[in-house]
């Protein structure tokens, strides 16, 4: 998790300034998210794939992420065609599948994938520390940037503490079952995870403060906004504008 696998690389998108990427991603994602048009969603999906290939990241990596996301859209496919109403597309036994339901499920799936892929391509290609720093220089409230950076940092800590406790339980032959003992054990595990993570987080924060940390994370690789970034941003914003205009065709 801390490896920031997507951020490793030297492609056209990796070397762009995160400020430009954040603005481009915000515009692009918003335009893709609010559309009702199939054409727009399809075009933004295609664009996101192009962006992804610009990153030169291995395809398997992103497929794994998409699998996770589409496990959610899968449930939409299960429910929407049955419940949405409208004109009947076809009937399977006593069940009638609605045309509008299928259309909506497809639209949501297309949009979701376009958004996830474009975020991986645009934001995933920068380290979180650099993103946080860029958000700060875009004048986002400092506390928000701080929360972003530390949620990211401590999710990992909490996960580690939890794994450690689960391992300790397993080593003493704990096998989850449907019993009060299991529920109580998981209650203890979660409670203890919170307490231990809190203590650990306090110590990590102390270590940071002692080394002069005052709320600003300064990334080692400083980004410099260049004319290439301006070109990139203009191209991205023009494409986004086209997406928006497509809605009115």
């Amino acid at each position: 998790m801390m490896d920031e696998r997507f951020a490793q690389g030297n492609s056209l998108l990796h070397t762009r300034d995160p400020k430009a990427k954040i603005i481009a991603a915000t515009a692009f994602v918003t335009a893709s998210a609010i559309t009702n048009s199939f054409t727009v969603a399809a075009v933004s999906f295609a664009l996101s794939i192009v962006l992804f290939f610009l990153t030169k990241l291995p395809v398997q990596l992103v497929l794994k992420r998409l699998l996770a996301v589409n496990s959610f859209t899968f449930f939409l496919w299960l429910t929407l065609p049955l419940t949405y109403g409208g004109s009947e597309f076809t009937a399977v036994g006593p069940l009638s599948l609605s045309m509008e339901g299928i259309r909506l499920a497809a639209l949501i799936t297309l949009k979701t994938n376009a958004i996830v892929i474009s975020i991986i391509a645009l934001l995933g290609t920068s380290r979180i520390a650099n993103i946080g720093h860029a958000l700060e220089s875009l004048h986002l409230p400092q506390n928000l940037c701080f929360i972003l950076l530390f949620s990211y940092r401590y999710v990992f800590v909490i996960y580690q503490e939890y794994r450690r406790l689960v391992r300790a339980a397993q080593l003493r032959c704990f096998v989850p079952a449907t019993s009060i003992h299991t529920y109580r054990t998981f209650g203890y595990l979660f409670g203890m995870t919170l307490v231990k993570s809190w203590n650990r987080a306090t110590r990590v924060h102390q270590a940071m403060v002692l080394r002069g940390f005052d709320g600003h994370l300064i990334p080692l690789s400083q980004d410099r906004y260049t004319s290439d970034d301006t070109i990139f941003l203009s191209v991205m914003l023009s494409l986004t504008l086209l997406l928006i205009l497509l809605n009115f065709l």
Partner: protein
Amino acid sequence: MPKPPIIELRNISYAYPHNSMPILQNLNFSVSDKHVGVIGSNGCGKTTFFQIIVGLLTPDTGQLLFHGENVANKKQLRELRKEVGFLFQSADDQLFSPTVIEDVAFGPLNLGYSSAAAEKIALETLMDLGLSGFEERITHKLSGGEKKLVALATILAMKPKMLLLDEPTNNLDPRTRKRLIDILQGLDLYQIIISHDWDFLDQTSSILYQVEHGHIHKCEEDHIHVHRHIHKAGDHPHRHIH
């Protein structure tokens, strides 16, 4: 007039919240020797003593003096923390960046060095500790001994004048332990070392203090007593310090 000690504690008392018994009571201490060892039983307040020195805990009463001046505001505390480095008991609490180089450069960056300068300092520090080639290693995948040395590097990169080491030899294998001893002996810095490892203290400190009943006091240098013991190399001449 003699130069004031880098750190002095005057009549420090501290009690943890929800605990009526203070853990430190009217504690007085000033740094006179370069290499100080601190001993004491578990839970006697040794770590609390360190946390008071670097201002992580604010004493209930008493004064913390840095170069003879009362540490009263954040700016002074920042100066103090720049000069006094604290190596935690657990290196895991100290390393938080993905890669070693980022973690070591974290301090210098906070001190206002440019990225290039911070990176240079970090690389030099790693080299001094014999950790060249570790730059791109992932911190949480290092071995226990490597983590300890990298944690030390993160502190030395801030170019402190004084080091506080909290049980530095815990869980170290003999080779890393020896390496740590060599490193500490080679550093021209004030060092206060908390340890239960007598042999380590014998090699790294010139004076021994004990924390007991909320106070800290110098140990008598030669306290002669008779005891029985057993060890493998018993027929070779050796020193005994307890």
